[in-house]
C-alpha cells in the first residue's frame, strides 16, 4: 500500500482551510496552557521571593512614614522614597522584650541616575548586623563591600565595573544581584558608610527633603527577628506600646494584600486555562467529526482500493497528530516569545511580584504543554477514527448515508 504513504500530508494540504483552522486551534491551546501555567508559577515564585526578600519578622519605621500612601509601595513595589529617625531608636528597640536580631537600614532615592533615567532607590545596610540583604548579595558577591562599592539589582542597566554617579559621588558597581522578581531588582545596595556619604552629598546639594539630618545619627528603619519563644505579633505590640514616634509592622501583614491579589489572579488564570482547554477539545472533536462525515465517500473508496479498517483509523489519527505537532510547536514558540520577551510588561501590568522559573523549568512546562495539546487532539480524533473504521462501504457508496 505504498500509495497511502503520503496520504496524510496530501490530505491535509488538500483542505488548507480545515488544516489551518486545526493548526491555529492547537496553537491557541498550547499558547494558553503554557503562558497561563508560566504566569501562575511566576507569580507563586514572586511571592515566595518577596517573603524571603523581606527576611525579617518585624519592621520599625518612623510613624510619620506610615501615614504616607507611598510607604507600602516603597517597601513592596520599589517606589523611590526615604525617611529618617534618630539612631537612638535602634538601641531603644533592641532593649524591648522579645527582640532578637536587630539591624538598621538607610534609604535614599537618587535624583537621577548617571545614565539618563528615573530615580532609583538606594538602600544602605550595616554588614556587621544585617540579616536581610547580605544573603542576597552573597549569592552574587562573596567579598565585603568597600566604601563607594555598590551592588545593583538585576533590572538595572548597569554592569560590574561600571561607575555610577549619585549626587555627584562616584560609586563602583561591584556586583549585580540575581533576578528576584521584587523591588530589589531596581534597587542599588551599599554599605552604611557609602550611603551616609551619599546622604551628606544630597544635603550639601540641597536635594534632600530633610534639611536638618545628620547622616551619622539617623537610620531609616530597623529590621527585627524575634527571639526564640516569642511571636512577631507580641513583639510588634510591645514596640508600639513602649517606643514613641515609631511604628512596628509585621512583615507578613505587609504582604498579605499582595498574597490576596496573587491568589485572585492565579484563580482567574486557572479558570481561563480550563475553559480554553475544554472549549478547544470540544471544537477539535466537532472539527474531526465533521471532517470525517464529509469524507465518508473518500474513506469508502479507500476501503474498496484495499485499505484496511485499521489503515483508515490510522489515517485520521496521523492527521490529528501532524496538526497537533505543527500547531503545538507554533503555539509554544509564540508563547515563549510572549513570556520571555514581554515578561517585564506582563509583570508591570499585573503589578505583582513576578519571577520566571529557570530555563530548564520553562522547557519542562513547554514539553508538558505540547504533550497535553497533542494528546487532547489525538483523543478528539480517536472518536472519529473509531467511527470511520466501522463504516459500511456498500451503504456509503450507494449513497444511502
Amino acid at each position, binding site marked *: 500500500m505504498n500509495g497511502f504513504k503520503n496520504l496524510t500530508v496530501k490530505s491535509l494540504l488538500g483542505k488548507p482551510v480545515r488544516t489551518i483552522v486545526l493548526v491555529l486551534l492547537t496553537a491557541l491551546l498550547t499558547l494558553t496552557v503554557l503562558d497561563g501555567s508560566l504566569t501562575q508559577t511566576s507569580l507563586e515564585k514572586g511571592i515566595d521571593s518577596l517573603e524571603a526578600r523581606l527576611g525579617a519578622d518585624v519592621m520599625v519605621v518612623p510613624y510619620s512614614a506610615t501615614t504616607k500612601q507611598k510607604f507600602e509601595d516603597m517597601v513592596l513595589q520599589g517606589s523611590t522614597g526615604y525617611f529618617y529617625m534618630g539612631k537612638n531608636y535602634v538601641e531603644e528597640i533592641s532593649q524591648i522584650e522579645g527582640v532578637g536580631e536587630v539591624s538598621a537600614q538607610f534609604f535614599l532615592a537618587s535624583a537621577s541616575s548617571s545614565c539618563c533615567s528615573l530615580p532609583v532607590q538606594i538602600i544602605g545596610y550595616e554588614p556587621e548586623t544585617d540579616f536581610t540583604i547580605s544573603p542576597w548579595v552573597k549569592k552574587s558577591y562573596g567579598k565585603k563591600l568597600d566604601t563607594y562599592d555598590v551592588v545593583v539589582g538585576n533590572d538595572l*542597566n548597569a554592569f560590574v565595573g561600571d561607575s555610577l554617579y549619585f549626587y555627584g559621588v562616584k560609586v563602583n558597581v561591584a556586583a549585580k544581584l540575581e533576578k528576584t522578581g521584587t523591588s530589589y531588582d*531596581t534597587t542599588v545596595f551599599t554599605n552604611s558608610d557609602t550611603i551616609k556619604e551619599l546622604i551628606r552629598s544630597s544635603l550639601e546639594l540641597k536635594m534632600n527633603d530633610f534639611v536638618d539630618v545628620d547622616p551619622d545619627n539617623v537610620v531609616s528603619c530597623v529590621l527585627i527577628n524575634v527571639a526564640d519563644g516569642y511571636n512577631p505579633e507580641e513583639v510588634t505590640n510591645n514596640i508600639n506600646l513602649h517606643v514613641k514616634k515609631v511604628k512596628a509592622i509585621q512583615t507578613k501583614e505587609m504582604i498579605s494584600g499582595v498574597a490576596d491579589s496573587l491568589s485572585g489572579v492565579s484563580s482567574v488564570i486557572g479558570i481561563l486555562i480550563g475553559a480554553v482547554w475544554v472549549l478547544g477539545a470540544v471544537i477539535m472533536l466537532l472539527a474531526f467529526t465533521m471532517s470525517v462525515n464529509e469524507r465518508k465517500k473518500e474513506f469508502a473508496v479507500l476501503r474498496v482500493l484495499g485499505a484496511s479498517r485499521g489503515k483508515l483509523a490510522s489515517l485520521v489519527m496521523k492527521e490529528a497528530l501532524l496538526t497537533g505537532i505543527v500547531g503545538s510547536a507554533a503555539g509554544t514558540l509564540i508563547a515563549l516569545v510572549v513570556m520571555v520577551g514581554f515578561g517585564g510588561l506582563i509583570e508591570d501590568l499585573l503589578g505583582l511580584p513576578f519571577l520566571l522559573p529557570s530555563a530548564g523549568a520553562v522547557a519542562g512546562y513547554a514539553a508538558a504543554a505540547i504533550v497535553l495539546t497533542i494528546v487532547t487532539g489525538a483523543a478528539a480524533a480517536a472518536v472519529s477514527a473509531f467511527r470511520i473504521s466501522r463504516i459500511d462501504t456498500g451503504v456509503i457508496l450507494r449513497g444511502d448515508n
Partner: protein
Amino acid sequence: MNMKRSKKALVLDIILLVLSAGLTTGVKTVFSACEKKPDGMWMSCHWAEQAVFALGIALTAMAVVNIVLGKTDIKRGIAIAMVPTALITAFVPNVFINLCMMKDMHCHEMMRPAVIVISALIAAAACVYAIIVREKD
C-alpha cells in the same frame, strides 16, 4: 528577465512590506521609547528609537522596491540585503545604543522585545524569500 510573479513570491512581498512598515510606524507609536524627562531632556533610548526608525524606513523602501520590481534576481538580491539590515535593527536597542537605567521602563519592556521580534520575522521572511523564490517561479 521579467517573470510573472508567483503566488508565494507575492505573499512574501506583502509580508515583508507589512512587517517593515509595522516596524517603522510601531517604533514611533505603539512600542516607542520612553518619554522626555521632566527637565525636557531625551533619555538615551530615544536615540535607539530614532535609529530603528531610520533602519525601518530603509527596510520599508526595500520591501516597496521588491513589490514594484519584476526581475527575480534583483528581488532576491534585495531580500538578501534585507537580512543583515533586519538583524542590525534587532541589535540597535541596548546593544548598539543603550536603553534606560531600569528594565521596568517602557523602552525595555515594550520597544526592545517588539523590535527584536519584528526584525527577526523580517530576517526570517527575507531568508525564505531568497531561498524559495527562483526564476522558474
